[in-house]
């Protein structure tokens, strides 16, 4: 009986706690869910935008598949910047995107990286089949965009089935870079923009843009957003001249 009293007391405390936690939404904060690889470019663009606009830009950064999942569950993002068409397609199919707002903005290039001090002669994807290449790091080819793109490219080249046993699936592009940097794998596939931020890896092969998979970073407004006009204004800024030059600075290929 007194156990019940204690439980009642605690439930009451919890109720009081949660009821005190309401807060008003600030109409001028635009929340952009963006692939982690866009962090630096979007921070620069956000800062420049805030200097000339009353709106504030907030970023939430993570793997594109996490972000799509969150938006699909109703997370209050206003804009989604994906590193992958499939994640955007999923949201479009589920009716989460503002109709007509979606556009393809950026592209990137796949490259093969090896540790900066590597002595292996790797000059093409074919060389990765050699026996002295034991392990190849790749962001999970089942879920993460860069992994999906790479496996598609290797399959087109007829190399995927032979290379598959050597592939070590890792969390994302940064984890790929980290495992190459540490020398635990002989090589890895990453984006050119990511390879550029590490001094401990070198690019030994760039997948030609026309031959490689079409890597596309689409952007769209979220249907349930309550700040659509502000978000649209920021999206125009991102896809305008100032946004484009910031993305180019970080090595992205910008669609004209």
């Amino acid at each position, binding site marked *: 009986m007194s156990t019940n*009293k204690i*439980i009642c007391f605690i439930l009451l405390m919890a109720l009081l706690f949660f009821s005190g936690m309401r807060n008003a939404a600030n109409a001028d904060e635009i929340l952009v869910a963006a692939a982690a690889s866009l962090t630096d470019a979007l921070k620069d663009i956000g800062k420049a935008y805030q200097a000339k606009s009353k709106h504030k830009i907030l*970023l939430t*950064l*993570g793997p594109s598949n996490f972000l799509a999942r*969150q938006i699909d569950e*109703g997370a*209050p993002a206003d804009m989604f910047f994906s590193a992958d068409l499939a994640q955007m397609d999923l949201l479009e199919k589920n009716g989460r995107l503002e109709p007509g707002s979606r556009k393809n903005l950026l592209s990137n290039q796949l490259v093969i990286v090896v540790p900066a001090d590597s002595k292996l002669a790797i000059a093409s994807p074919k060389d990765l089949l050699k026996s002295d290449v034991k392990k190849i790091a790749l962001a999970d080819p089942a879920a993460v965009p860069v992994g999906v793109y790479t496996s598609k490219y290797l399959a087109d080249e007829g190399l995927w089935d032979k290379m598959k046993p050597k592939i070590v699936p890792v969390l994302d592009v*940064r984890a790929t870079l980290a495992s190459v940097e540490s020398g635990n794998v002989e090589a890895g596939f990453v984006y050119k923009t990511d390879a550029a931020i590490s001094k401990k890896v070198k690019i030994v092969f760039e997948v030609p843009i026309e031959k490689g998979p079409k890597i596309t970073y689409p952007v769209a407004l979220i249907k349930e957003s309550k700040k659509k006009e502000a978000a649209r204004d920021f999206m125009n800024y991102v896809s305008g001249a100032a946004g484009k030059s910031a993305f180019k600075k970080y090595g992205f290929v910008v669609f004209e």
Partner: protein
Amino acid sequence: MIFSVETWQITIFSLGVGLASTLLILPFGIVLAWLFARKEWPLKSVAETIVLLPLVMPPVSTGLILLKIFGRRSPFGQWLYNRGIEIVFNWKGVLIAMAVMSFPLLVRSVRTSFSEVNPRLEQIAATLGASALKVFFVITVPLAYKGIVAGALLAFARALGEFGATILLAGNIPGKTQTLSLAIFNFVQTGKDSEAYALLGITVILAFTFVWFSEWLLRTRKTV
């Protein structure tokens, strides 16, 4: 840059939400631990196992479950949303992720310390006319307080380290939901190793302090 204003903001935010999370789970943890240690009830072993699950499950999958529960698409999430309570992409999401992930550690430690209190003392107090509630607050809790504090410290340290459930439920928003763990992830993602190491240093110092203090309390407690 390394110990910038931003670094301190992230640290204070993590400590603040971690503290709130620990205070939030403390009463629940104490009551549940007492029910586990002192009472027999149907399906108790099932309840004990469920409480421990977040300790061993991949944090990302716990995060996914939390996202399903609190997301606007679920009936409960919708109910909260209609009342203006936002959990996803909000500091409250950080709080809930931390609370859920650190709860098992608290319950386990407190349960052990309750078990070590001699039930004879509780029975004597009861025969002298103390109500069950009085016995609990005057005999059981004071005798077990070191274990309770040790458990709370351990839960607090675990809350500070939380990553997987937090990034799924609360997102990774600098200045709004970014904790030490999430900031380290972001610095690693963008190749800013020196900033990542600075936060790592802070994390190690905090974690060491709380875990060491927790262990010290357990070492120095008397069992009656």
